């Protein structure tokens, strides 16, 4: 189990045209995931999804807050001890092509980390090849076909499976999949999603799934949780089906309203929300961060800051003074 409490992160950009500039990427985020669980982050570009994912994977520092793995606060450990915890969390890169060395066969790609693993666990040379084949089988690839090939000889979906197989060489507890399916052809996308779900079910691996494509979050498990992030803050959080079918935060509703409707197959939601175009979205940090773009803001929203909670008796948590259900998601058209 991994938890995060009150995580903040501000990037300081120097040498930009406007002089030194502070970019608050995360503004006090709480997070928790059980072993074998699934959590998805959604939100606009630049909202802090990748930053949070990297922090939870130990790849990025944070300014304040605390991360604990299986109850052990990371701040209590030495750098070395911390590294051994974080090694159990593996990041899967969005672009399966640049994530693999083009000059190495798949065999070579898997051999290096497995050799290290064999050394750590006192296993023999023969275990390495067996394990490579086993892992490829696990991700649904035919070792006989794949092992001797180079990345460019494989399809996007196959490459992404290789990247996942490589992440599995260290027996991770958690995979952080950052836009892991967005560069993959639609016809292959479901296969990768099913694989992630399968790894949860069979190996008990937790999956942190970062995506622009909200619908994909359902396919790594309906038991998962969805976090909606806006400008470094979680604005709505709860069971994936609840947040998608019954969102109460206007920002979540805007995101879901923006998803293209498959006209002919679907009818658009009756109450789609279009955010107003913010003149300067970074204008002020008091009150609700979404207020400059929120069509439903009131004076209170400008003056006070909403915090996550179940206000109004909602199943999910939300940070809005005026939570209201709106039907924004498209529903299947009745077939004639």
């Amino acid at each position: 189990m991994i938890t995060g409490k009150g995580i903040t992160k501000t990037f300081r950009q120097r040498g930009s045209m406007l002089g030194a500039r502070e970019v608050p990427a995360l503004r006090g985020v709480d997070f928790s995931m059980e072993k074998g669980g699934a959590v998805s982050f959604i939100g606009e570009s630049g909202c802090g999804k990748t930053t949070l994912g990297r922090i939870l994977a130990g790849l990025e520092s944070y300014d304040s807050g605390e991360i604990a793995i299986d109850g052990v606060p990371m701040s209590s450990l030495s750098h070395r001890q911390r590294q051994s915890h974080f090694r159990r969390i593996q990041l899967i890169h969005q672009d399966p092509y640049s994530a693999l060395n083009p000059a190495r066969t798949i065999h070579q790609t898997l051999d290096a980390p497995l050799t290290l693993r064999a050394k750590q666990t006192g296993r023999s040379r023969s275990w390495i090849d067996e394990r490579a084949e086993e892992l490829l089988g696990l991700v649904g690839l035919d070792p006989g076909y794949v092992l001797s090939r180079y990345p460019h000889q494989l399809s996007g979906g196959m490459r992404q499976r290789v990247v996942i197989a490589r992440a599995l060489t260290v027996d991770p507890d958690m995979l952080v999949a950052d836009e892991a399916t967005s560069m993959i052809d639609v016809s292959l996308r479901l296969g990768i999603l099913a694989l992630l779900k399968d790894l949860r079910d069979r190996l008990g691996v937790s999956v942190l799934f970062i995506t622009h494509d909200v619908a994909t979050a359902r396919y790594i498990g309906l038991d998962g949780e969805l976090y909606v992030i806006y400008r470094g803050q979680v604005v709505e959080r709860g069971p994936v089906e609840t947040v998608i079918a019954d969102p109460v935060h206007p920002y979540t509703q805007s995101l879901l309203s923006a998803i293209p409707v498959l006209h002919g197959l679907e009818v658009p939601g009756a109450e789609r929300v279009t955010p107003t175009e913010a003149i300067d979205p970074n204008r002020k940090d008091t009150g609700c961060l979404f207020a400059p773009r929120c069509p439903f803001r009131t004076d209170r929203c400008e003056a006070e800051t909403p915090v996550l909670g179940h206000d109004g008796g909602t199943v999910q948590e939300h940070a809005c003074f005026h939570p209201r259900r709106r039907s924004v998601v498209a529903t299947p058209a009745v077939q004639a």
Partner: protein
Amino acid sequence: MPVTDKRAPGVRISDLSVVYRTGAGELPAVRGVDLELVPGTITGVVGESGSGKSTLALSMLNAVQPPGRIRSGSVDIDGLGDVVTLGGEDLRKTRGRHVGYVFQAAQNSLNPLKTIGKQLLDLGRSHEVDDLPGLVKEARSLLDRMGLDGARVLDSYQHELSGGMRQRVGIMLALVLNAHVVVLDEPTTALDMITQATILRIIREVHEERGLTTLVITHDLGVVAEIADRLAVMYGGRLVEQGPTREVLGAPRHPYTRGLLQAIPRLVGDIDEARALPGRPPTLGTIPPDGCVFRERCDVRMDVCETGEPPVLTIGPRIVACHTAAGEGEQKETVTTGPTRGEEQA
């Protein structure tokens, strides 16, 4: 369907084949494509990576670059004639002036060293625009129209603009010379959902206001579903199905279209209904030279699909290229015969 606009030209792509020279000889990336863009409509071409969409878009401007070439066919635009036969000055003037375009990854193709305004003036000069202040005014109003501060954007360098803003600059540059045929290759890729929805709305509005004939190329079925009047599905260099968007999505006829729709992750409904297509999309080297391009992944394949080119059938407003549809509609007379044909177009 929007009202046909008198200004909007029609476009007829006929039997278009485009090949790339590779180590294994010339291989077709687009093969025997017939597509009509009805004046005043938005046509969406959807297909997976490598299916030939960008190659098709480039052909609309006769802009396929070596090692590629248009091997056969024509692209006939009202008032212009066949652009495949145009060359030199005529062709250069056509691009931008008559056919506006935003190439794939246009958001990364602006000149980083010049302001947007300077690049606009360069464009105007290269097309011998006399009234440059008028051009700037037009550009500004287009940008304003797209929800940007036009004056500020023209004074900006590329790195000062977000991805969504650059995408809009690209669309402005495609429209500013008053072209009435517009080609947009992946206009919203790499944008997030809310920005994408904004850009799609703007494309639709500008299309209607200006009376354009628009071709939108995308790998995302959702994008065409949202804005296109007609939809064409591309696979392995061929158009396998065409028709009014709602009809095709509501009742797909080609097994690939059906498979593609079934593979889309959906927001509601039973997740077990969604299914990945088996196999993988073909690449230039693995596209079968004859028979149906989709047969390796098709769950209703028949013996005839191995060798027989699928018949191109017109069924009302729809066109399907599949053996299973045989007998349902009218067969087109100009069934294409692949690589042996049309060597006259060097």
